[in-house]
């Protein structure tokens, strides 16, 4: 007797759990690689977005309070987990993009290396961006980068895995937490990445993945008063309204820009989602 395949239910990732959309909505994603496979993917709603922001807010304390060294270890762990599922990801990138086996494998390898690259920067960014400031008085005066808080991320639409890994890693490496709206072209890759992160010792809620549509969820994140920054990498051309909505609570905004996702992010890109804190400390005898 033929065995029935166990099909995977593609859900969201919110606060460390994998719920379906509260709205019950799904949409069909067809294969880009010519196969007749179809994935039914959860379509996140306004309330899912709200829940994800609540989870991300809850995670800010523990994640930003962890040592930079520890955050680096956890990001490196993500690379380990991704490496062990390399073949699955090659298949999923091909399903999403129709890339050749060779090109897909290159993208997955680059994504694994990207985690390692960013992980290494975690405890070095403060040394690059921080400073001991010369001041006219008997004070130690120093400046340190601190995480901005909850970051809304619209993942790039044109890069299934590498772009997603880059925008997530550069947001969380400094201690931010994020709510990511996955590319509508490659939602299954994003959920598989969520499964990788779920087994990487990342505290619940540090990364939350919503599959759905940036034009529906973007405005909700942009106007949300409890989101502190928004990365518009995947917002498309109509991002001006998002930036305007983000101004209400003075969100830090990363505008979309033509980006070669093949290049490792430079420190300035990781530091874009930090705030400088300057401390004055009286100097003793």
């Amino acid at each position: 007797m033929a065995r029935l395949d166990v099909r995977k239910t593609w859900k969201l990732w919110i606060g460390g759990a994998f719920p379906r959309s509260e709205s019950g909505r799904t949409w069909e994603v067809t294969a880009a690689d010519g196969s007749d496979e179809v994935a039914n993917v959860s379509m996140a709603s306004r309330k899912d977005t709200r829940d994800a922001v609540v989870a991300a807010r809850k995670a800010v304390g523990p994640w930003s309070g962890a040592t930079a060294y520890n955050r680096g270890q956890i990001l490196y762990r993500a690379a380990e987990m991704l490496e062990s599922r390399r073949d699955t990801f090659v298949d999923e990138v091909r399903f999403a993009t129709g890339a050749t086996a060779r090109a897909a494998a290159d993208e997955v390898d680059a994504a694994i290396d990207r985690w390692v690259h960013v992980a290494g920067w975690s405890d070095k960014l403060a040394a690059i961006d921080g400073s001991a400031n010369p001041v006219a008085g008997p004070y130690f005066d120093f400046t340190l980068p601190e995480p901005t808080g909850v970051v809304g991320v619209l993942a790039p639409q044109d890069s299934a895995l590498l772009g997603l890994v880059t925008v997530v890693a550069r947001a969380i490496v400094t201690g931010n937490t994020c709510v990511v709206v996955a590319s509508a072209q490659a939602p299954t890759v994003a959920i598989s990445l969520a499964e990788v992160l779920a087994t990487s010792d990342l505290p619940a809620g540090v990364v939350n993945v919503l599959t759905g549509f940036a034009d529906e969820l973007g405005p909700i994140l942009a106007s949300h008063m409890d989101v502190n920054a928004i990365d518009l990498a995947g917002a498309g051309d109509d991002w001006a309204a998002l930036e305007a909505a983000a101004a209400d609570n003075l969100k830090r905004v990363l505008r979309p820009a033509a980006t070669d996702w093949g290049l490792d992010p430079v420190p300035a890109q990781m530091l874009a989602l930090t705030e400088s804190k300057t401390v004055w400390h009286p100097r003793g005898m």
Partner: protein
Amino acid sequence: MSVTARQGAPPELLEATRSEAALRSFLHGLGGVDAVGLETRVAGLATRSIKKDAKLAGIDLAIAMVDLTTLEGQDTPGKVRALCAKGIHPDPGDDDCPSVAAICVYPDLVATAVEALGDSGVGVAAVATAFPAGRSSLEVKIADTTLAVEAGASEVDMVIDRGAFLSGRYGQVFDEIVAAREASGNAKLKVILETGELATYDNVRRASWLALAAGGDVIKTSTGKVSPAATRPVTAVLLQAVRDFARLTGEVRGVKAAGGIRTSKDALRYLVLVQEVAGPGWLTPDLFRFGASSLLDDLLLQRTSQRTGRYHSADYLPMA
């Protein structure tokens, strides 16, 4: 048992409070609570969808019903003053936002709260009678109550002696409530049953009737110091008791659900319960209260989200 119900009470109640034996037979003669039926009904009422204007009205009503509470060893006069300022103007950016019903503190901080609230109309509730365990002599409990009332408390939240209740000494519990009622003078007396320690719905119903017969103006679920605190089924039993008590005696008493209510959604479900179990007449801050510390913040977040159409942040709420 030394005291009986007030003159003018209906014959059943006069008879029941004539002696401890009569009280016991009255309380044990109350119908038992169908636990499965109760929980099913309460769960059914929780599915009711309240949106838009009804939700906004419900949130405003819930804010006006909050007894904003701080009952911690680390309470300071400064914290109480901040809480009072927040209670008077929960949303400083919106004059239409109602004030809370009362500020609930320990007796030694009543004077601070009274001064901070001035003539704002917000009441001061003091927990008394050896709160939260209620384990002390009657003299100490009465002194505690007197301290609160003399400092200006307009409401007294007393606890019953659960040990006495559970061992069947109903007369003692009754007498203590009557004594606290007298010591409270004109202040409203809320009787905390601490339902989390009463174990069964039948006990909750008996304790409710006992407290009402002894003259409690409001029956209250919990101190907030014991888990489980307020649950909706337990609150439904209390609401049934005040409804039936009103039918029997014509006297309308209130209910306060306290402890563990943190979200607007939960608060709205309680309001549905009040409407459906007791009746719409009880949907007023005089007759139904929420005892809570963090609930107000969520109500304010939801209120602002509803009004502005965008999700709000706790960063913009007054602290306290």
